């Protein structure tokens, strides 16, 4: 029996206007309208170009998505990966009906639950219980449906004691847990998840992934999952879509797509700038690596390499520590370091520049960096995965040295003849 198609996307495109929207648009609108009246093509859409944010184009219309075609079978878990700005979020927004496409068509079967953000519509003054109902209703659940699942939701979130406390008293971790729990229990045939797992502690992330895996494998629901965490994508999704500048550059089994993504992505990631806009907890602004004081992601020498982090502390009561982790491209953690490695720091409001030496004993190869900040009760404030990649280029001697192991660590052997 052939599988049913759950989502079919045909010639989907989405154009965005760059720069100021609102100045001169009345005249532009009139011009558009006039073109339409004469039965001509929209004069401003025609001059659009592919969305490559690093090169400056001469049109202020860009195609965030251009002629996308794909099909997803029922029960499939599909990962969507790509650089920042490749069109991942736009695709999810269109699929969740938050915004309409510029052209093209999507047809599908079954109710969609989309989780572009956790806790949408949570009201700080309302209790956990009231927010479960409100959030559930926003996501499209009926009241009695929520009532039926209340116990399960509370249990999953692990917040039973705080159920009647206003959510403004919750720790950020509890807040996220509650929000995810509501969404995960929505009875839908299609689940769309956008990087929401970037918040929350590792244990909870595992739990969410488990829940989503259960959803797709056990209950035969379709899952679409956007993440920068290749590990999670690999774990959850059998197939993946790689988006590059608004085009689908690959749609096949996940490990092949990830390989391709990492290979192509290396050139672009020497400096990472936070996409978090005016969020008042946005702390990590920029991450980059310098090699002999020059921004680089290919490290030719072992010495004088530094990881640089720019921190913007707005609320020093919340913020406590920052740390990072270096992983191989196969997703194996090499080590992790925190600012309290030196001494307990006391931060005040302001912008900080942190400079951490990159260890000299990394073997030649490709690595990527995760960074994160914690608040006073050690819950995660921000956690970004694979913010930057870098490549350690070894000397000829090193490359010839085929000894196994994750790190290069020549030791001082004491050799005496007896």
């Amino acid at each position, binding site marked *: 029996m052939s599988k049913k198609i759950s989502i079919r996307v045909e010639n989907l495109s989405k154009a965005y206007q760059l720069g100021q929207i609102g100045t001169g648009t009345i005249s532009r609108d009139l011009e558009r309208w006039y073109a339409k009246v004469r039965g001509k093509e929209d004069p401003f859409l025609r001059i659009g170009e592919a969305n490559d944010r690093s090169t400056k184009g001469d049109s202020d219309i860009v195609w965030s998505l251009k002629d996308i075609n794909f099909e997803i079978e029922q029960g499939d878990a599909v990962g969507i990966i790509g650089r920042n700005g490749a069109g991942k979020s736009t695709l999810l*927004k269109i699929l969740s009906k938050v915004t309409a496409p510029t052209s093209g068509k999507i047809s599908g079967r079954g109710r969609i639950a989309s989780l572009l953000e956790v806790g949408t519509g949570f009201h700080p003054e*309302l209790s956990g219980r009231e927010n479960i109902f*409100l959030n559930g209703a926003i996501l499209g659940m009926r009241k009695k449906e929520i009532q039926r699942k209340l116990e399960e939701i509370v249990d999953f979130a692990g917040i039973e004691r705080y159920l009647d406390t206003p959510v403004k008293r919750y720790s950020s971790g509890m807040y996220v847990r509650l929000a995810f729990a509501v969404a995960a229990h929505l009875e839908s045939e299609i689940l769309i998840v956008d990087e929401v797992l970037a918040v929350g502690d590792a244990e909870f992330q595992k739990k969410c992934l488990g829940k989503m895996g259960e959803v797709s494998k056990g209950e035969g629901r379709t899952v679409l999952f956007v993440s920068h965490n290749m590990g999670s994508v690999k774990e959850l999704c059998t197939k993946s879509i790689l988006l590059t500048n608004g085009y689908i550059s690959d749609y096949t089994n996940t490990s092949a797509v990830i390989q391709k993504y990492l290979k192509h992505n290396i050139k672009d990631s020497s400096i990472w700038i936070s996409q978090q806009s005016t969020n008042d907890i946005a702390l990590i602004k920029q991450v980059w690596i310098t090699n002999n004081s020059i921004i680089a992601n290919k490290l030719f020498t072992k010495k004088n390499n530094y990881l640089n982090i720019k921190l913007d502390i707005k609320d020093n009561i919340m913020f406590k520590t920052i740390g990072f982790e270096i992983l191989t491209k196969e997703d194996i953690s090499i080590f992790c370091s925190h600012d309290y490695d030196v001494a307990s720091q006391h931060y005040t409001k302001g912008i900080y520049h942190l400079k951490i030496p990159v260890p000299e004993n990394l073997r030649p190869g490709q690595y990527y960096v995760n960074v994160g900040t914690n608040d006073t009760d050690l819950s995660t404030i921000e956690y970004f995965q694979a913010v930057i990649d870098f490549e350690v280029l070894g000397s000829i001697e090193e490359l010839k040295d085929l000894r196994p192991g994750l790190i290069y660590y020549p030791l001082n052997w004491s050799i005496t003849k007896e």
Partner: protein
Amino acid sequence: MQHKEEHNWTIESKASLFDLKLNEVWAYRDLLALLVRRDFVSFYKQTILGPLWFFIQPLFTTIIFTFIFGNLAGISTDGLPKPLFYMAGITAWNYFSDCLTKTSTVFRDNAGIFGKVYFPRLIMPLSIVVSNLVRFGVQMILFLLMMSYYYLNGASFHITSTILLFPLIVVLMALLGLGAGMIISAMTTKYRDLAFLVGFGVQLLMYTTTVIYPLSTALTKYPEYAWIIEYNPMTPILETFRYGFLGEGSFSWGSLGYAIGVTMGLLVFGIVIFNKVERTFVDTV
């Protein structure tokens, strides 16, 4: 055993202008109720005086109007006790203007939610109208208390059978505010100027309807400009309201029919334009 229906859906770049998605709104009725509850609960929780605030605003406005327009300017109140006359106008006008101003900023106020999750957007303005109904109800109680006070003191007013039109009047005010508000909200997502216009426009609009003067006075004093007042769809609504509760005012079926017509026109136009803008507003807001 629950019957699971097969939902087949399509998302396209263009949608029919007259696909108002009202059945979808009905499917989300629980959300409407929860949003109203949220507004009410959060209003209580942040204040010390709580629902007392509902009273303070109309009460003080009435006092000021009585002094300035009633006594200082000496504008006629059709023989009704001045505070009662103003209170009737203010209570009704407040409901309309609250619906209008809150609805007109619905896209901006909810950009966060709208940008992250889909539900029929119409739910939001509807919840505003219903939430304000609670406030209107409280203010009506104040008005009724005032009426009974004046009645016991033997003031000259009488309730007429037109009071039976009260539910219709409330619905008309709500829908008129909703319709006009939705049109403005849809346009402010692109052209911000309108937001400023609404701020003082609504205030000025109050003077073109019969909140602080009776229609009869306007007709005799400014016969050539009175059409502005008569064409304001709020005028027949206010006049009917006053005529029903206080027995004075210019009530006619014709003018009420006109108000109903304008309301329906604005409402349908509002929903159509709202539904059109709603599809892509997150890109421009």
